[in-house]
Every structure is written in structure tokens, then in C-alpha cells.
């Protein structure tokens, strides 16, 4: 290959008279640049990109004019027309240039290459070779973007370009093609891998699901089930009966990639109950996995089950094992466990992670550890029993089977899908045990097996051996999968712990802080070195990161997630974690520009935030932490802070306070929210860091955040403030209230800010789109962004199958659609979300007042009660408290716009009631004058009387507290007043109610407290 001088090719290309000339020139150019980074540089500088884009645009428009005689031969490679050949060559060149790495991204974007490439991905209009090459070019650009210095932004903008309805349709068409051609399989793999790499945000996940991409992927998964011969026996007969038989797909063709399909599915369904349900209800999945009971022909298989059931180790009858269950070993279930019961056991310190679901879904879904729980419980209560009846889909045991029978990435990704389904609550509760013994240990082993030594040459190379790349992919993903699986389950955490996950993940995190080589990647040697000098107008951007760098950052995030997920419940594990000497690494992960983790004795100098902050410079050996890593580290801190002993030892020793404090002022609001969450536990009474944080000025910052427009930030900052004012001296308390502004506090606890804002927004939109004002349903549906009514793609999209119309008559499909609509409503209704946000913030606001007027000493309490009365206004405060106990109707005049099921009637929440009562408890614990004041609030007390029968144990306990305090006798001077108070309470009928509690309450503690209160009431008679 002699070196061809550049201008001839260029002029040949530009001056080409015919397509054939152009093709020849482009081919020659291709041989020049493929695999030659330097030549790529040179040609980009010669403005080749612009010429390529021009070729793409002009030849495409001319082909449009030429008509579409080629339509309909979708999927079959055919010989290309001349102009198509030109475009193919141009696309190949683009793809090859993109392979040059991140430094080519700038020029590629500058000429608008993305739209030009995207216009070639429509499989119905273009021959498969072109579609394939266009997808390759996109994929290479995505690869380059993931190594760019600002990879998050680069990937996001690419995703925004790709995941719009036009192109989503194209992706759907590609994925649902039933061609077995190798070309088409590669197209499908590329689409799946694009989804995996680019889809990171909730709205993209929804867009993909709603465009039918999820269903197409589910069908591909079903093809693998068919290929493995694991379709539930009788599926066809059942399908014949209800019209789904046609949806049983053909076996997966050669060249299809199971790991990619699983990962793409898992990417789309992550963090949403609704999307998880869409997977289960996808026609192909329903067709091959009908929920039917199965009796194996060989009786002895069944015998083992029966034996277990006899000894009480399984409840088979309740479960109706499907055929797939017989593929799994039998797991004895000692006791039924459920997620919700565990959450209830968790000490109501008030910061259960479920609250994090409030954080808007902006960041990568997985940073929200258990966003599920609230939606789960919420919708469970909504749908009541209707859903409990639904049998588990055999897809879940099949995926567990798949975890056991595959290896490598396939195993990790099968587990990832099963984790999403399990967390969404679609698995039987008994599955928890099966997951613990059948899934968690192999996953841990997977990480161990692939944690291989990286030789120095690879560390410093832009090219990674495929086998090493596969190892890395597993190490990056598996810990996060494990994290999602175990986060809400003590049993699964135990399983992971016993498999050595904690030690392993600590090693992973430490490894990710092994200093990277600070040398730049080796640049190819150049035969004419003087060329370097005239690079002034070089349009090629800076080289990006090395693959090892991206790998380390991803591993860091993944490991931190697993660490946080392992220690949510047990102090024992937190202790084990600290013993791994991992805290310094977590502290460094809090910093956007980490440095060498400071070990044990070399204690960091106490930093002061007042010091001038020098502009942070990245230390190339440790890289820089993107926000996702920082947020994950904040979560770890938050959870570690739950242990008092950790607060006093490890966290204090490693100087956690200041790094977290600095993050409060981070420019990204998601980081601020996470930092507020971490601060919550650092400012508690037992924390030795509280003083330092107060000195650094945390009060001011938190109060500022409490004024934020972001409900998540408001919530977490109020939470932290609540902890901060607990048991401190009055000056600080007063300072807090001053800084927060009493007027704002009133607003926070009083108004339904989010709901109002939403309502205002909706109203405004209505006024803006005045076209059909009398459409009454408009408001209710306004949130359906664009599409007024949601259509289930599986039901309404044109399907490749000729019998598609039968789908819409299938009973199972109709039932599934109904379920999906309900779930969607529960998950995406903004009114519901706004209301939940408001309630959560109100609860924190009330608790803030409660702590303001709380202990340490009675005299200080008295002072604070007076101060609060003064600041907020005594009558207004009592009125607010009373209003919190009333049933409330939101926007009574707007009701005609809301559909019936979205009732706008608010019943007071137990947590809010509890907070109100405890404020009164503290007032009543002050001097007799304040007790008197409380007694005088007849209306308030009457409202309280209604809550003696509350289902919530904490509310009943608080009431007993209150009554005890109200009839408390300070000294003899209070004697008369005390009797009056008792009299008043009896008049309100409280004695009878207390006696009721004393006799009939299910809880011993409540009975005892009620007894004491009854005694006091009677004594003071």
C-alpha cells in the first residue's frame, strides 16, 4: 500500500462525475484511514468530514427522487444501487473515523454527522448493509463518547438525538424483524448495545418502552426460551384458546446475543414497576410462559416437593409450581418473608431510604436505592387484593434457572432482570430464599472469577483485548446488580455477606484507587516530526480517557452502590465494613477530584471550610469522580452514619464532615440532595462532627436549600435541620429558625406547594392551548405528554405477525392492559407525586418544630415554646396543627377536571399526625401555662380524639404520651389547674378512649402507657 498523496483522492472525490468514480475514490480513502490513526487526523484536518456529510445528504435526496422501488425487501442483503454504494462507503468512512476515539468527536459533531447518519437507519427504506453501517457508526461514536472527558454530557446528547419517536420506530422495526440473516442479527445486537450504553434517564426508558422496543426485546428473549426448549408445556394449547398462540416466536437465530438482549431489557425496566410489568405482559412472554400448574409425568419429582411441604418447609399449594419451577432445585422456605415486614421492623428513626424516591428521577436510576418501596406499598394499597391474586410469571423461575445455567455476562444480566422483577414485587415472597441460595452466591463467584490482573501494557493502551474487556464488563456491572438485589432484604444481604461479597467489593473499590499511570497514552511515532509544530489549527480535539480509566470509574460507582446496599440493615455488617479499612476510599469518593486515600494513622489535617478553596486540580493518577460516584459515596456515608459507633470513630477519624459539607454547595442539585442526606446523620446529637459543621456554617446552607424549588432538596435539608436542632442550646435553635424564616416554615408545613405549583402549571397549559377548552378530560390527561391516552404498544403497534388482530381479543391481553394502565397511573401521575412530596416535607417541617421545642432541659423548652409562639403566632400555629388533622379536599373547584379515580381528598397521614401530637406533647411537657394553652384548644383536642383508633401504633403511643403530660402535676401550686385539665379531658371523652386502649390494645407498651394515663386522669378527679 504505497502512500497516496492526499490531494489526488480528495480532488477525485470532489470532482467525480459518476457514482462509480466516487465509490472508487472513497474506497481508496478507506484503505488509507482504516486502522491508521495518524491518517485519520490528517484527513479530518483536510475537512474530509464535511465532504462525507455532503455526499450523504446529496445522494440521499437524489435517491428519494428516484422512487422507492426497492421497498419491501427488508432484511435480505441485496446488491446495492450505485448511489447506495456511495453512501455505504461514506458511512464506513464515518464509522472508521469515529473509531479514532474521543478526539474526533468535536469535528464529527461540528459537521452535523449524527442526523446524517441517523437518516440511514430506517430498515424499510434502506438496504440492510447501509442500516448496519449506520448503526456501526453510531455505536463507534457512542464508544468514543464514553471515553470523552465529559462523557456524561456526550452520551446524554447522543441519547437525546437517538431516542425520539422517528428513530425509535426504526429501532423497533429493526428489532422486530424476523429475518435470520447474519446482517440483521448484527443490526439487532448493535441496537441493543446502543440502548444499553445510551439509555440512562427515566424519560428515555419510558420512550423506549412506549415505542415497543421493550416488547421487541422481550420477543427476542422469548426466542431464546424457545431455542433452549424451555417453553412451558401446553403453552400452545392455552395460546390457541386465547389468541396468543401466534405470539410464540421461532427459536433464536444464529448470531443472536442473549447477554445483550438481557442487558437491554434490564436497562429499560430498571426502577419502574410499570415497565417491569410491561415485560411480563409482553405478548411473547405471556404466550410462552402462561401461568399454569404443572404436574411432572415422573411422580418422584413431585415427591420431593411434597416431602418438604409435609415438614412445613414450603407452601407449595399456595404457589402452584409451574413447569419451570421443576428446573430449579427445591429450596426449603423456613418462614415466609416479605419486603414490607422488614421495612416495618426498621427503627422509625425517620430516615428510611424509601424516602429517596422523592428525589426526581433525573440521575441514573440505580442511585436511588429503594425507590421501589414507596411506590410498591402505595400501589399495593391502591389495587388491594386484585393484584395479590395474580400468579407469578414463570419468567422469574426461568431467569433464575438461566443464572444457574449460563456464565459470564449472561449470568450477570439474567440476574439483573430478575432483580428488577423481584424488586417490583412480581415474584412470590418465597423467591427471596431461592434468590439467596441460587442467585447471590453465583454472582459473588462471578465477580471473583473475573477479577483478573491487568498487565501494565493494557493499563496504558487504548486497545483492550476482547477477553479483558469482557472481564471488565462483568466487574463493572455485577456489583450494581447485586446491590439492587440485596438492598431491601436482610436475608439477601446475609447471603451476600456469607458469600464474601463485602470483602470482595472492598477490594474492588480499593483497586479502583490504584494509581493509574500518569503517562499519556502512547501516541504513534511520526515519520515527519515537524508536522507537530504546525498543529495550531488542528481541529482534532484532545485525546479522551483510556479504557482503563472508564473502567475504574464505573467500578468505583458500582462498588459503592453494593457497599451501601449491603449495610442498610445490620450494624454487624457496618462494623465489618469499617474493619476493611475502606472508609478512606469512600471519603475520597466524596471528592470530585480525589487524591491518594489517607490511611489509618496519617490522619488528615482538620480542614476548615473557611479556607480559601483553591481550584481543584485533577490528579491524573486517581482521575476525577463524576456525580454518579459522588452520589453513591454520599449514600454510603448516610448509611454508615446510622451507626453511632461509626459516627464517633471511623467517620470522625477520617474527617468525613468537611468533604460532605463541601458537597452541599456542589453545582449539581442531585449531588446536593445526596449530600443533605449524608449530612442528616452527621449533625445528630451523638455526632462529634456536629460542632465543626455548625462552625463551618452549615445552618445557613441548609436553610438556603430549604428554600429550594426542588422538592427533594427541600425535603432532605429540612430533614437535616430537624436533626440539627435536636438537643442543642437555644441560641442555635433560634438561629436556625431565624435563618429559615418563620414565614417560610409556616408555608412549608402549611401549603401544598408542589400540588399548587402543578395545578398552576396545568391551568396555564390549559389557557395556552385554548383550542378545545371544553374538553373536560384535558387536565387529567395533560400529563400524558403529547399522547393524550396511553396506548400499550404490544396491543396497538403493527406487529410482524399476520394474526396481530387476534391479540386485541385475547382475554389475557385485555387483563394485562388493564393492569398496566393502573400501574402507569400509580407511577406517573404527577398529582400523586406532588402530593407525596408535599406530605413528606410537611412531616419534616412539623418534626423540625417538635425538635425546636424539645428537650434537653425543661426551662429551655419553655423558652423555646414561647419563642416559637412568638415567631409563628400562637393561634396560627394551633390552627395549622388542627388543619393537619382534618380531612382535606384539594382544589374543590377544579374537581371537574380530574377524573374520579384520582380523588383529591386527602386523609391525614399517620406520620404527620404523629408529628403534630408530639409537638403538643412537648408543649405539655413545659410549664403549666403551656399545658393550659393546649387544653384550651378544644377543637384540636376533639380532632385528636378521633385518632385513638388509629391503625398506626406510633400515633396511639403519642396520644398516651400527650395525655400523660397534660395531666402531669408539677407541684402543689398546679394542683387546681391540673384537676381542671383532667376535667376538660374527661369531658372530651378521653378517659373512655384511654380505658379502651388499656384493655384492648394489641401492644403491651400502649396498654401500659394508657394505664398510667388513666390512673392520672382518675387521680386528678
Amino acid at each position, binding site marked *: *500500500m*504505497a*502512500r497516496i498523496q492526499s490531494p489526488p483522492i480528495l480532488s477525485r472525490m470532489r470532482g467525480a462525475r459518476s457514482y462509480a468514480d466516487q465509490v472508487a475514490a472513497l*474506497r481508496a480513502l*478507506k*484503505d488509507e484511514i*482504516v*486502522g*491508521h*490513526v*495518524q491518517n485519520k487526523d490528517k484527513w479530518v484536518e483536510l475537512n474530509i468530514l464535511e465532504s462525507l456529510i455532503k455526499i450523504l445528504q446529496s445522494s440521499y435526496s437524489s435517491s428519494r427522487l428516484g422512487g422507492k422501488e426497492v421497498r419491501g425487501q427488508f432484511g435480505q*442483503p441485496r446488491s446495492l444501487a450505485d448511489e447506495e454504494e456511495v453512501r455505504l462507503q461514506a458511512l*464506513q468512512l464515518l*464509522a*472508521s473515523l469515529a*473509531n479514532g476515539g474521543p478526539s474526533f468527536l468535536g469535528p464529527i459533531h461540528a459537521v452535523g454527522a449524527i442526523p446524517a447518519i441517523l437518516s440511514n437507519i430506517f430498515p424499510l427504506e434502506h438496504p440492510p448493509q447501509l442500516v448496519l453501517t449506520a448503526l*456501526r457508526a453510531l455505536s463507534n461514536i457512542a464508544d468514543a463518547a464514553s471515553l470523552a472527558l465529559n462523557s456524561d454530557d456526550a452520551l446524554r446528547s447522543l441519547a437525546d438525538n437517538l431516542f425520539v419517536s422517528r428513530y425509535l420506530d426504526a429501532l423497533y422495526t429493526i428489532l422486530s424483524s424476523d429475518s435470520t*440473516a*447474519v*446482517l440483521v442479527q448484527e443490526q439487532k445486537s448493535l441496537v441493543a448495545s446502543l440502548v444499553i450504553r445510551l439509555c440512562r434517564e427515566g424519560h428515555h426508558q419510558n420512550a423506549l418502552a412506549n415505542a415497543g422496543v421493550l416488547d421487541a426485546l422481550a420477543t427476542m428473549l422469548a426466542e431464546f426460551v424457545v431455542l433452549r426448549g424451555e417453553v412451558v408445556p401446553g403453552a400452545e394449547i392455552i395460546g390457541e384458546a386465547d389468541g396468543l398462540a401466534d405470539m410464540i416466536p421461532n427459536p433464536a437465530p*444464529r*448470531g443472536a446475543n442473549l447477554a445483550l438482549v438481557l442487558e437491554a431489557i434490564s436497562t429499560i425496566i430498571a426502577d419502574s414497576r410499570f415497565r417491569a410489568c410491561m415485560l411480563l405482559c409482553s405478548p411473547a412472554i405471556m404466550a410462552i410462559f402462561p401461568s399454569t400448574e404443572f404436574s411432572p409425568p415422573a411422580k418422584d419429582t413431585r415427591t420431593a416437593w411434597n416431602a418438604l411441604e409435609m415438614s412445613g418447609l414450603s407452601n407449595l399449594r399456595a404457589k402452584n409450581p409451574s413447569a419451570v419451577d421443576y428446573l430449579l432445585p427445591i429450596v426449603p422456605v423456613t418462614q415466609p418473608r416479605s419486603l414490607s415486614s422488614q421495612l416495618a421492623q426498621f427503627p422509625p428513626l425517620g430516615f428510611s431510604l424509601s424516602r429517596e424516591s422523592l428525589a426526581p428521577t433525573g440521575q441514573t436510576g440505580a442511585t436511588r436505592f429503594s425507590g421501589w418501596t414507596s411506590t410498591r406499598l402505595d400501589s399495593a394499597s391502591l389495587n388491594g387484593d386484585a393484584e395479590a391474586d395474580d400468579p407469578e410469571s414463570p419468567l422469574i423461575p426461568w431467569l433464575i434457572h438461566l443464572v444457574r445455567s449460563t456464565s459470564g455476562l449472561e449470568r450477570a444480566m439474567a440476574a439483573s432482570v430478575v432483580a428488577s422483577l423481584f424488586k417490583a414485587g412480581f415474584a412470590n415472597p418465597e423467591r427471596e430464599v431461592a434468590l439467596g441460595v441460587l442467585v447471590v452466591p453465583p454472582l459473588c463467584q462471578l465477580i471473583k472469577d473475573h477479577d483478573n490482573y491487568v498487565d501494565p*501494557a493494557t493499563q496504558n*493502551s487504548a*486497545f483492550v483485548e476482547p477477553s479483558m474487556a469482557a472481564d471488565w464488563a462483568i466487574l463493572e456491572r455485577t456489583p450494581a446488580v447485586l446491590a439492587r438485589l440485596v438492598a431491601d432484604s436482610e436475608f439477601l444481604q446475609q447471603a451476600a455477606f456469607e458469600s464474601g461479597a463485602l470483602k470482595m467489593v472492598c477490594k474492588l473499590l480499593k483497586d479502583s484507587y490504584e494509581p493509574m499511570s500518569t503517562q499519556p497514552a*502512547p*501516541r*504513534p*511515532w*511520526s*515519520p515527519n516530526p515537524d508536522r507537530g509544530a504546525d498543529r495550531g489549527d488542528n481541529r482534532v480535539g484532545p485525546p479522551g480517557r483510556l479504557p482503563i480509566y472508564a473502567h475504574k470509574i464505573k467500578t468505583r460507582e458500582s462498588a459503592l452502590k453494593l457497599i451501601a446496599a449491603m449495610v442498610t440493615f445490620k450494624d454487624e455488617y457496618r462494623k465489618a465494613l469499617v474493619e476493611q479499612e475502606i472508609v478512606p476510599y469512600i471519603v475520597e469518593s466524596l471528592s470530585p477530584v480525589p487524591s491518594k486515600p489517607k490511611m489509618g494513622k496519617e490522619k488528615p489535617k482538620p480542614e476548615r471550610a473557611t479556607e480559601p478553596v483553591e481550584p481543584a486540580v485533577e490528579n491524573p493518577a486517581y482521575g476525577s469522580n463524576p456525580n454518579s460516584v459522588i452520589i453513591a459515596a454520599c449514600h454510603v456515608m448516610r448509611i454508615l452514619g446510622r451507626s453511632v459507633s461509626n459516627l464517633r470513630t471511623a467517620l470522625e477519624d477520617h474527617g468525613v464532615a468537611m468533604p460532605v459539607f463541601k458537597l452541599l454547595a456542589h453545582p449539581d442539585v442531585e449531588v446536593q440532595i445526596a449530600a443533605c442526606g449524608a449530612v442528616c446523620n452527621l449533625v445528630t446529637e451523638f455526632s462529634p462532627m456536629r460542632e465543626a459543621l455548625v462552625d463551618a456554617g452549615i445552618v445557613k446552607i441548609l436553610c438556603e436549600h430549604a428554600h429550594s424549588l426542588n422538592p427533594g432538596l427541600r425535603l432532605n435539608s429540612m430533614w437535616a435541620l430537624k436533626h440539627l436542632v435536636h438537643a442543642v442550646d437555644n441560641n442555635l435553635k433560634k438561629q436556625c429558625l431565624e435563618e429559615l424564616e418563620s414565614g417560610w416554615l409556616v408555608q412549608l408545613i402549611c401549603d401544598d406547594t408542589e400540588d399548587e405549583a402543578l395545578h398552576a402549571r396545568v391551568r396555564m397549559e390549559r389557557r395556552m392551548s385554548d383550542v378545545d377548552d371544553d374538553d373536560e378530560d384535558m387536565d387529567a390527561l395533560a400529563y400524558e405528554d403529547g399522547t393524550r391516552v396511553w396506548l400499550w404498544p404490544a396491543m396497538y403497534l403493527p406487529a410482524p405477525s399476520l394474526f396481530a388482530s387476534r391479540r386485541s381479543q385475547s382475554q389475557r391481553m385485555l387483563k394485562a392492559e388493564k393492569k398496566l394502565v393502573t400501574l402507569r397511573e400509580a407511577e406517573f401521575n404527577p398529582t400523586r407525586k406532588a402530593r407525596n412530596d408535599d406530605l413528606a416535607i410537611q412531616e419534616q417541617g412539623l418534626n423540625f418544630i417538635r425538635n425546636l421545642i424539645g428537650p434537653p432541659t425543661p426551662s429551655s423548652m419553655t423558652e423555646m415554646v414561647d419563642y416559637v409562639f412568638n415567631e409563628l403566632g400562637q393561634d396560627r400555629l394551633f390552627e395549622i396543627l388542627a388543619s393537619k388533622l382534618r380531612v382535606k379536599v384539594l382544589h374543590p373547584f377544579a374537581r371537574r377536571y380530574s377524573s374520579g379515580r384520582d380523588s383529591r381528598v386527602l386523609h391525614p397521614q399517620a406520620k404527620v399526625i404523629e408529628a403534630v401530637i408530639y409537638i403538643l406533647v412537648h408543649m405539655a411537657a413545659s410549664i403549666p401555662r403551656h399545658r393550659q394553652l393546649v387544653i384550651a384548644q378544644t377543637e384540636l383536642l376533639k380532632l385528636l380524639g378521633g385518632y385513638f383508633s388509629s391503625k398506626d401504633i406510633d400515633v396511639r403511643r403519642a396520644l398516651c404520651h400527650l395525655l400523660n403530660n397534660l395531666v402531669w402535676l408539677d407541684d402543689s401550686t398546679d394542683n387546681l389547674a391540673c384537676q381542671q385539665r383532667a376535667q376538660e379531658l374527661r369531658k372530651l371523652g378521653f378517659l373512655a378512649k384511654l380505658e379502651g386502649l388499656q384493655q384492648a390494645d394489641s401492644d403491651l407498651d400502649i396498654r401500659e402507657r394508657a394505664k398510667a394515663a388513666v390512673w392520672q386522669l382518675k387521680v386528678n378527679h
Partner: protein
Amino acid sequence: MSSLSAAFSLEALDTNPAIRDLIFAHLRENIDRMTSSASTTTPAKHAFETRVAEVKAPKSDINALILDYLMMEGYPKAAANFSKEAKLQSQHDPSIQARQKISQAIHTGNIEVAITALNELNPEILDKDPALHFYLLRLQLVELIRGTNGGNNIIPALEFATHQLGPRAVMSPEFLKDLELTMCLLIFPHESLDPQLAALLHPDLRRQTARQVNEAILMRTTSRREAAIRHLVKMRAWAESSARSKKKDLPDHIELGLNSGDDNDINLDKNSHDPMITT
């Protein structure tokens, strides 16, 4: 593999004997290269061998194996003929023609043509595999140097090395070593070379590079690197060595079994990579 030999010796293949012999010869040569077993011990009927004799492999499996071999190694016409005669459904592999063309080009030392054809088939292969690209270019340099033979005009070779290989050599110490070695060819007369240097001029280098390229293409299209039969041979070797290490009762030497029959007249010509059948 012994089952395979059993099937062969039983004349299980009722195909054209000429094709069969050619295939046997071909398989044998390729497989012998992989397993360095060449001794000939006298067969004292061993228990193992009687067991082997009892195993009968289905004819269709054997035929499928052979077809797979022909497809993967890139013999489109032989594959087509074979599948016609053995009444197998011929599989469609779009890359097989291109693979044959590329292999042929490499075997004849026409590397530039091979690279162009490879880029036409799928430009990603060379773009994403710098090592493979380096080996191809190095072979091209060797061919250039071979052309100079004795040093009448070494300028093109020097130019090529400077512009194509030089920039890459820094990327990896291995590349650098290979390049240096290749450049030595310019200095020493080709008639009396070190074995190390002589190896570069030996056709084996072409063969090896051609195989690497073929495997790289196969990985892309079928995610399999080699024909199933090669895999079976390796598995057999592994099974034998692990059985021996566990002191199982085995004959001292187990024939690969492809040398059965009296086809000694087929000579194993070195240039077997040319198309076997010209129709």
C-alpha cells in the same frame, strides 16, 4: 476422534471417492499440524480400542462436521459440492467468498489486495484490531523485502516501514521487536539466514497470517473462531492428557485415526491452501 475414524473406515461416506480422499488428506494435514503425534506403534488390541470400535457415530453428524470445516476454512465450492452430494442443506455464509479471496491473496503474497478486500467486507475488523493490522502490514513488508532479494532497490521497503509500521511499533514492545527482526532481512543475504529470520520468509508466516485473518472474520460473523472439528481435536487431546495424568488404563498411543485406509498415494502437498477443487 476415533469414532470419526471408525465412521470413515466403514465407508460411511458414500460421496464421490475423489472428493472424500481429498477431504481426508486435507483434514489430516491440518490436524497433524496441530497434534504432534507421528509415531507408529504396533497395535496390541487394547480394551480401550475395542470400546472405540463399538462406538458408531451417525453419518449425518460426520457429514455436518465436514461441511462445517469446509465452510469455516473458506472453501465455498467444495462446500457446495459436498453438501449437494451428502444431501445436506447448504448453509448460507455471506462472508465465505470474501474469506476465500482474502486467504488466497495472502497466500500469494498479495497483501495489499487482501487488505482492500478485508476493508470492503468489514472495515471494523482492522480498525478495532491493531495487532491483526500490524501482522498484515508486517507481512506486506516481508513481501516487499522478498521482492528486493539481494538489495537492488530497498527504498520502497524502507518507505513502507517508515510510514506504515514505524508509527505502530511504539504502541507495543512486541511490535517493535517484530519490526526490528523484519528489518534485519534487509541487511542479511536471504540464502544464509538465522532460523529465526528464515522463518519470516517461510510460507508458514503467510499461512499463519491468513489463518489469523480468517479467524478474525469468523469471530465477527459467527462468534466462533474455528471449525468444530478443530475444537474436537483439541478436546480429544485434552481428554487424553487428563486421562493419562490420572493414570487411566489407556493404550500407549492412540492414533488420531485419520490415516486409516490405503490412501498413501495422496501426497500432502505444501500448497494445499489453493482451492482443492477446481470445477
